[in-house]
């Protein structure tokens, strides 16, 4: 296979897009972990599940704002969903941006309803009817569909970059998987941080979240390795070196933190807060690295 040739101009997707990729990933990942805790966790895990659904919706709230702010014509954001030229809906399944817009809308609905259920369980009785519905089989089905959409929101951002003609992005088809795995890692870290800050969350839940976090990290490391191989084969890996090695360092520190802090005695007492924060920074750094390095 010959090395890839790129003569495309950069789209100048910068800070708004980075913020969206980060918060969108955390939101989708939190929802998925919330569903896992709810469906396969113990009764003691249900408090953490509630936190996960609340975190998912709160992280999702600014996402449409980030995307709209990035548009050259923000008031035309609705053109992503409605066809302004031909009438009807604007839906192009082969365009990740089009598909992602619809997925974000759908996931927003699922995340909002699950959020209402979670706050009702926490004592906000106005939403009790929703909480009652979500406790049964309907709730399980709702969570599973929401998780599917949440996963899509986590991963399509990587596919969006890959479906281009930009160096690095279009050379690395595994980007969708990389971002999805990274979202799970970041969400697990955030939930660990939130769970440890509350006394009403069961200590066993934190242990289970830690184990899940480490599993997600292993998955992410494997996918990053596959991504780097594809970019190296295309001959564009050099774009992610130089000054970007600093961000790689942050990524590596965040990935190593869940393992290193539990094994080094001196670091163990810092682990509850430091490891999740490093993991979250790693999620942000990975996206910044991919977004910015390709466009310089």
């Amino acid at each position, binding site marked *: 296979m*010959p090395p890839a*040739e*790129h*003569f*495309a*101009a*950069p*789209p*100048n*997707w910068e800070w708004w897009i980075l913020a969206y990729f980060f918060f969108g990933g955390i939101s989708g990942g939190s929802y*998925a*972990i919330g569903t*896992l*805790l709810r469906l*396969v*966790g113990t009764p003691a*895990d249900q408090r953490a599940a509630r936190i996960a659904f609340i975190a998912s919706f709160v992280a999702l709230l600014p996402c449409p704002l980030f995307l709209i702010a*990035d*548009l*050259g*014509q*923000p008031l*035309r954001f609705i*053109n*992503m969903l409605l066809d*302004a*030229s031909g009438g009807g809906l*604007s839906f*192009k399944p*082969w*365009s*990740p941006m089009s598909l992602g817009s619809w997925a974000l809308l759908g996931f927003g609905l699922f995340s909002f309803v699950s959020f209402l259920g979670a706050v009702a369980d926490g004592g906000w009785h106005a939403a009790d009817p929703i909480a009652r519905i979500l406790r049964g089989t309907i709730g399980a089905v709702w969570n599973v569909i929401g998780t599917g959409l949440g*996963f*899509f929101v986590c*991963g*399509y951002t*990587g*596919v*969006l970059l890959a*479906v*281009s*003609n930009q160096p690095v992005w*279009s050379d690395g*088809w*595994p980007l*969708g998987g990389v971002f*999805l*795995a990274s979202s*799970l890692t970041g969400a697990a870290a955030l939930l660990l941080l939130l769970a440890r800050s509350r006394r009403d969350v069961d200590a*066993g839940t934190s242990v*289970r*979240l830690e*184990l*899940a976090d*480490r*599993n*997600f990290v*292993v*998955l992410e490391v494997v*996918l990053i390795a596959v991504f780097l191989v594809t970019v190296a084969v295309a001959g564009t890996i050099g774009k992610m070196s130089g000054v970007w090695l600093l961000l790689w360092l942050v990524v590596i520190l965040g990935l190593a933190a869940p393992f290193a802090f539990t094994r080094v005695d001196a670091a163990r007492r810092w682990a509850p807060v430091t490891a999740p924060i490093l993991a979250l920074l790693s999620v942000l750094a990975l996206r910044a690295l991919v977004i910015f390095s390709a466009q310089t």
Partner: protein
Amino acid sequence: MGFFTDTSICIGCKACEVACKEWNQLEGNKPELLLDSFDNTGQLDAQNWRHVQFIEQIPDNNGVVMNPTPIAGGQAWLMMSDVCKHCQNASCLEVCPTNAIVRTEYDSVFIQQDVCNGCRDCISACPYGVIGFNEKTGTAHKCTLCYDRLQNGLQPACAKACPTESIKFGYLDDLQAAADKRLAALQTAGYKKAQLYGRDAKVYGGLNAFFLLMDEPEVYKLPSAQNATLPSRNNLAGYAGGFVTAVVGLVAGVLAFRSQRMNEKTDATR
């Protein structure tokens, strides 16, 4: 309809750039000293819908020609008036999420300014770096093939202005026949590297603005036929990779939550 740009007779006068800016009322970018031969516009973008490239293949200080050509003892000064290719399989049109980019009755690729919302997905997709973002309008811009002139029976401004007829406009069949004839004449005269780019379907299903080049496409910053691939090539692999990751992620999560739960149950039994 489309363009046939014969680079072998381009003299780098930039009349096409000027005519394009004049007709389409493009302000142009702030002048910059690019130190790149006679180029003072740099690239195609929102303000430059035609861009004349100057490619110097002359000896360096040691008398070595880096990329020798069969022209003038290995030396050449290649010029090419670059423009949107109006691809048959257009990457920009493929990814545009709002349907702002459409194919017109002239078979050209056109950005509807009243629909574009400035997401810039088309810019990331265009393999030729043709499309630019206009900060004032907040939308993407590129060559329209002078859609308004065509509607009034006029040819595009650049083709009209070109003094050497390096830029020819017309029906594709006629242009292709003229290109084949010109290529044969050049090859007979010894220009072995002369080649047509985008004349047939090998590059994006064929280009409505195709070129006669005097060297390899890469020299003119054009991807070779092998590298001219649509963004959608990564759709299936990208989503499949995401799906497999989601399944493995779920299994990893279930294993973590179930295994610990089993441990707790075992401890409770003891």
